[in-house]
């Protein structure tokens, strides 16, 4: 493995959702977009809040706060654009974040037993344990299941 590949494997983008920090593998993240208008229309897809227009493309916005925090989406300032895979196709997808994003290099540890499927592992960053998100599993989770996961996680922690 080359140094570049090794670096890519261990690079993560730390993002802030509400009061908590999470991480996404850096190779899944395209950019941090400024706050733009959220367009909404009737639909029945879980977790999808609407769409934004970014670089001429229509990008779906996932409101993941209920899944991650078990509460409504807090005020956000930016959109983190990540790539979601649909089979062979890749679609840019936006996650509302508070804007406190930074790049971190660390070794991911496997998740503790019983953690939700959307937690791919944990990082030790500055004395804090940060959950690394499996984006596919996170957005595929129904809000009810995610909330249940969030509750069970909170109960499991002291």
């Amino acid at each position, binding site marked *: 493995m080359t140094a570049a590949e090794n670096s890519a494997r261990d690079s993560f983008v730390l993002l802030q959702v509400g009061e908590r920090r999470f991480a996404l593998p850096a190779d899944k993240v395209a950019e941090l977009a400024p706050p733009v208008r959220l367009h909404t229309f009737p*639909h*029945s897809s879980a977790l999808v809040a609407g769409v934004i227009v970014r670089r001429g493309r229509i990008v779906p916005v996932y409101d993941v706060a209920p899944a991650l925090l078990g509460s409504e989406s807090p005020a956000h300032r930016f959109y983190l654009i990540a790539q*979601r895979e649909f089979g062979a196709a890749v679609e840019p997808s936006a996650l509302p974040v508070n804007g406190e994003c930074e790049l971190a290099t660390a070794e991911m540890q496997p998740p503790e037993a019983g953690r939700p499927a959307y937690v791919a592992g944990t990082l030790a960053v500055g004395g804090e344990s940060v959950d690394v998100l499996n984006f596919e599993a996170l957005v595929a989770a129904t809000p009810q299941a995610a909330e249940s996961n969030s509750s069970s996680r909170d109960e499991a922690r002291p």
Partner: protein
Amino acid sequence: MKIASQETGKSRRARRSETIILFSVAHQTFAISAESVQEIRSTDSLAGSATEIEHPAIGKVRHTLERAHRIYYIVNACAHFSLPVTRPTLVLILRQLRVAVLVDKIERMAEISAVHALPRAFDGEERRWYRGLAYVDDHVIPVIQPAGFLTHEEFQLLDRATLAADSQREMEGAVQA
């Protein structure tokens, strides 16, 4: 390079604009191809010509309209899109489908050069409701799929309910006579 530039020019010329009607339902704006709409009438003009119909599984259809010996089912767009109920003032009578749609108001007509595919993130009923999304004056607006208002099975159920209601009316008429 020269060939590529000619192809780009061709594709630009091939891009066809489409006229759409922007209408609103419960403060939400939708677009529908003007070619899909045969006629727009006020709901007041339907008084007397609309017939009540009821099917427990299809609450969004409460009336039918007969035009040119064909029964059109009147779909309440609020119910179809699960929006808060409003008082519709207009009915869009669709072309090539036996469907009329109750809406609140027509906003305007516009020309669009493209309908963008609905992102794959949308995996619910909206994939049947919409052809895609249009970008009109800095707004992203869903473009209606006319065939999405009623499924083939819903047409069959409504046709049977209509026949049953007609038979009932004929029997009641015979008893009164």
